[in-house]
Every structure is written in structure tokens, then in C-alpha cells.
């Protein structure tokens, strides 16, 4: 015990250095976790978090029996599943393409260029969508009309919300997400390519039998980790693309919590919905991480 105390004193500077970060986490992460109890209470601002009355599972029951409950869950899941399905393979393909550019300057330029959209804010990305897809003066609709079609009100139609969300997401992050795969390809032993060349392999064969197999471990890992967050909604972006006309598909759990909770002040009810999602998320993320670290252990050998 004395030794332990001595060690604590010896390391006092270390505690001081980590204190600010720890305080931050306590205030912005752990105190809200304590506040989660309002999901089981009837929160009244005057009585505070601790002083409000308990109502048990009432809010959860209301949510599960509400007609929009199914729509919210399926919208959230579908948006994430479709997004993962279409976005996932693209960074892999991109890394193989970039890895096979022979001109080094073009390679560097392409890499620099495809990372740029990652640094553009979600607001600006959504803004560009609104401008390009405008029914009256957007360039896309000008092109459609010029080709003899009819102008489409993209941002206000439920059928277009998911494609717009997914395609703009790919444009913004496919390049950035390819970095990991490019790094994996950079780690491939050059002797493998040389040996393949001597055996008369074509470049396409090298892609198939050297590049892709080297990407599989990274890809599997990314896939598992992504699956862990299928119910966590990227509220910030969905909210920006949400309009009165596309609510049928754009109304996801996150935007509902925002609109009803902060918009209409139903704190306890939306906190309950949020908690339900977070618990499922927690289970999924933890299992995803467990699976991925098991696999990592295996792929080391």
C-alpha cells in the first residue's frame, strides 16, 4: 500500500497532464450518461434531471406502439445498409487503380485530388447538392431538359433522398477511405510482383492474385467495424438533406430525436428513443470489435 502511494506521488505530473482530458470526458460524456435516467422519468426543467418523477418504461412503450416507430427504424437501417453496400467496394477499387498508375506524378496528383472532398464541410456538400439539383436552375435538370426529359425536383422527392445521400457520401469519402487500402498495397513485398512477372503473369492477373488477396484482411476488418454502426445514424448530414417532401425516406431516428427533442422539447421521450438505439449500437459495436480483434490475432500468423 505504501509502495503504491509512493508510486502515485512519483507520477503526480502524469495525473496532472491527463486531468484536463479526463475532466472533459466526465463533463461531456459521463455526466450525459448519468442524465440518461430522464429516459425513465418525466423530465421537468424546473425540477432538474435528478428531481423529476420516475415513469418507468412509459416512453419506450409509447415509442414501440407509435405508428412511425417501424418507419423510423427501417429508414435508419435501410439508409445505412444501402450506404454500406454501395460505398464499401469503391475505396478498394480506387486503391487498386491508384496503385497501378505508372506515371508517378499522375499518381501523386490523383491521390491529392481524391482526398480533397473529405475536407469540404457537410453543409457545403449539401449546399452543392441543392444548387446542382435545383429544379429550375440546377445544371443537372438543365441537362435532363436538354436531352428531352422532364425536370425532376430531386431534393423534394422521397425516392431520391437515399441516392443523393449515398452518392454524395461516396463523392466525399471514397478517396479518403482508400488511404488504408493504399497503405496495405504499399506493404506488399515487391518480390512477389517480380516473381509473377517472371512467371509471365499479366498486370490484371497480378491485381487478381496479389493485390486483392492482400486487401482482404483490411477489407474484412473495415466491413465488420462498419456493420457495428448500422443503426447509428449520421444525423448531421441527413438533417441537411431533409425537406418537407422527402420525409417518407429521410425521417431517421437521429433526425426525429433532433426535431422532436430539441425542436418540440419532448426531452424524456426522445432521450428514451436515443437510449434504445445507443444500447443496440453498443452491443453491435462491441461484438464487431471483438470479432475484428479475434481475426486480427489470426491474420498475424
Amino acid at each position, binding site marked *: 500500500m505504501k509502495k503504491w502511494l509512493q*508510486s502515485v506521488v512519483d507520477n503526480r505530473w502524469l495525473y496532472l497532464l491527463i486531468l484536463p*482530458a479526463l475532466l472533459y470526458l466526465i463533463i461531456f460524456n459521463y455526466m450525459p450518461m448519468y442524465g440518461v435516467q430522464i429516459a425513465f422519468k418525466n423530465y421537468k426543467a424546473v425540477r432538474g434531471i435528478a428531481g423529476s418523477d420516475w415513469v418507468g418504461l412509459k416512453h419506450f412503450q409509447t415509442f414501440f406502439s407509435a405508428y412511425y416507430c417501424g418507419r423510423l427504424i427501417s429508414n435508419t437501417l435501410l439508409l445505412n445498409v444501402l450506404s454500406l453496400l454501395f460505398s464499401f467496394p469503391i475505396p478498394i477499387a480506387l486503391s487498386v487503380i491508384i496503385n497501378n498508375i505508372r506515371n508517378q506524378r499522375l499518381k501523386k496528383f490523383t491521390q491529392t485530388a481524391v482526398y480533397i472532398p473529405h*475536407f469540404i464541410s457537410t453543409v457545403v456538400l449539401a449546399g452543392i447538392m441543392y444548387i446542382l439539383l435545383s429544379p429550375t*436552375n440546377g445544371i443537372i435538370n438543365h441537362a435532363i431538359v436538354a436531352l428531352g426529359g422532364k425536370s425532376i425536383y430531386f431534393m423534394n422527392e422521397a425516392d431520391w433522398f437515399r441516392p443523393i445521400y449515398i452518392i454524395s457520401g461516396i463523392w466525399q469519402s471514397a478517396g479518403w477511405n482508400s488511404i*488504408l487500402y493504399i497503405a496495405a498495397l504499399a506493404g506488399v513485398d515487391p518480390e512477389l510482383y517480380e516473381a509473377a512477372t517472371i512467371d509471365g503473369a499479366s498486370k490484371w492477373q497480378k491485381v487478381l492474385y496479389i493485390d486483392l488477396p492482400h486487401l482482404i484482411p483490411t477489407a474484412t476488418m473495415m466491413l465488420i467495424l462498419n456493420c457495428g454502426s448500422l443503426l447509428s445514424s449520421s444525423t448531421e448530414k441527413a438533417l441537411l438533406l431533409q425537406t*418537407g417532401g422527402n420525409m417518407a425516406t429521410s425521417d431517421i431516428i*437521429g433526425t426525429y430525436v433532433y426535431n422532436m427533442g430539441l425542436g418540440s422539447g419532448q426531452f424524456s421521450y426522445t432521450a428514451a428513443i436515443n437510449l434504445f438505439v445507443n444500447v443496440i449500437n453498443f452491443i453491435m459495436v462491441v461484438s464487431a470489435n471483438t470479432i475484428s480483434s479475434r481475426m486480427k490475432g489470426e491474420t498475424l500468423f
Partner: protein
Amino acid sequence: MQAKAIAKPSRQQEIWQDRVFNVVVLALVIIILAITLYPLYLVLICSISDATLVTTGQVTLYPKGITMLGYNSVMENKEIWRSYANSIFYTVGGTVLSLIVTMGAAFTLSRKFPGKRLISFLFAFTMFFNGGMIPTFLTVRDVGLYNSPWVCVLMGCVSVWNVMLARTYISTNIPEALYEAANLDGASQIQYFLQIVLPLSGTIVGVLAVYYGVAKWNDYWTGLIYLNKRELLPLQTILKEILASLESSRELLMSMASDSAENDAELLNRAQIAKYCIIVVSTVPAVALYLCMQKFFVKGVMIGSVKG
């Protein structure tokens, strides 16, 4: 020299499939570059073109009827400049604070000390579970940060992911022998941190500065949720109103286009152009920072992938 010549097959040796392959790769690269860069290029040329030509879809490949009217009306808009100044303050303040807090925590977590397991757990757990939007909002309100400019500086100043990144960097790049040497010379842990670890951590500080800086600059969410006073809002939250809605604050844009325009249609067109200019003005800082420091980025991701 000779080894190199052997390893690299000459052009004649290439089989025809490889030529097709190279052509296909080149074609794909051109398509990828076009898809990535064209929207950005289009915004840029539209921002300096004549309003009517842009809204009728005639500006596609190069600027037409070059004018700075759009930029002029953005310049005249006080709200945009005020929020721009706010964003600069939030970004610079937030990034400096984030770096100090993150590096301190990362250094501590790279060392051994009593209670390390518990503290590491407290850090990691926040990556898996959070209280959610509403309890977080109530907490921020209860601690008195609602409607305070400091909320934009403080929010997100500890990203556990970034702490892990920095910790991995410190424990893999700074040899333990240095610590022992410093210890023998009688340096305390804080002296070791300030005089040895920090000067050797240039790369990771650069990576984190850009990660935090860009995240702060591009954040509209904190302003939307925690700030109610218009004069405190950061640029991105103002932009949400101007850019990302169907009505897109017609009045606001009309007011900035004012005076010289002849009629309503002209006004509306001018407002449209102003949007392109706003996009350019608000995006340039983040992209410029990236282009200046791009060497750091790839390194940052690599460090992350080592530990994953």
C-alpha cells in the same frame, strides 16, 4: 543499376493484355478525376460568371461574362463576416486547446502509472457508448455553457481516437532510453514531456492540428444545438440556413444582393451566384490547410493503421 534493369521489363516484353490494362487504368483515372474535381471546378467558375448565364445553365466548362458582383455582395454581408470571424476564433482557440489536452493525455497514457487500466477504460468506453443528444444538451445547459461562445471552443476538444493516435506515435517513435537518460539527469516527468517528447512529436502534432482544425472549421452542429444568439454563430451554422434548405433564406440573400439589380428575377439570380461565392469563401481555408500539410495526412492514417 543492373539489378534495376533486370527487374523492370522493357516495353517490348510487355504482353498485349498489359497495354489494354494500362489504357483502362488511365481511362478510369481520368473519369475519377473528372467526377471528383468537376463539381468543385463548376462552383468556382459559376462564382465569377454572370448570374443569368449561370441560372440558365449556360456556364458548364469555363466562366462566362466574368464579374465579381457575387463576391462583392458576399463582402457586403455583415452576418457572413461576423460568423467568419467567430469561426476563426473557435477554430484557432479550439485547435490549440485540443492539442494541449490531447498531447498531455497521450503522453500520460504512453507511460506506466497506478490506475492506468481504469483511466484507459474510461477513455475507451466513450467510443462505444454515449448519453445521446438530449442528455448531452441538458448537461451542457446545466454547466452553463448554453449560449456561451466557449461551447464551440470546448466541444470535441478531446477525440479519444486522436488521443490513441498520439499515444501510439509517442510510444513507437520515442525510445525509452531517452526517458531513462532524462531521469538520470534529474528531469521530472513534466520536463521530459515539455523538453523532449513535444519537440520530437512534430509530425503527430501537425496531423492532429489539421484533424482538429478542419473538424472545428466544418462543424455546424455545435452552433445549431448549443447557440441561440445569432451573433455567436459560426460560419457553417449560418451557411446551413443559406445553402441547405429549399427556400434557402430568400430574403437574406436578397438583402445582400440589394441596390443595383434591376428587377426581382435579376435579384434572385444574383442571390444564386452569391451562394457559389459563399461556398468558395468558406471552403478555401480547410482545403488550403489540407493542401499545405498533405504530407502529414497520409502519415497520420498510417500511424492509426499500425495500431488500428
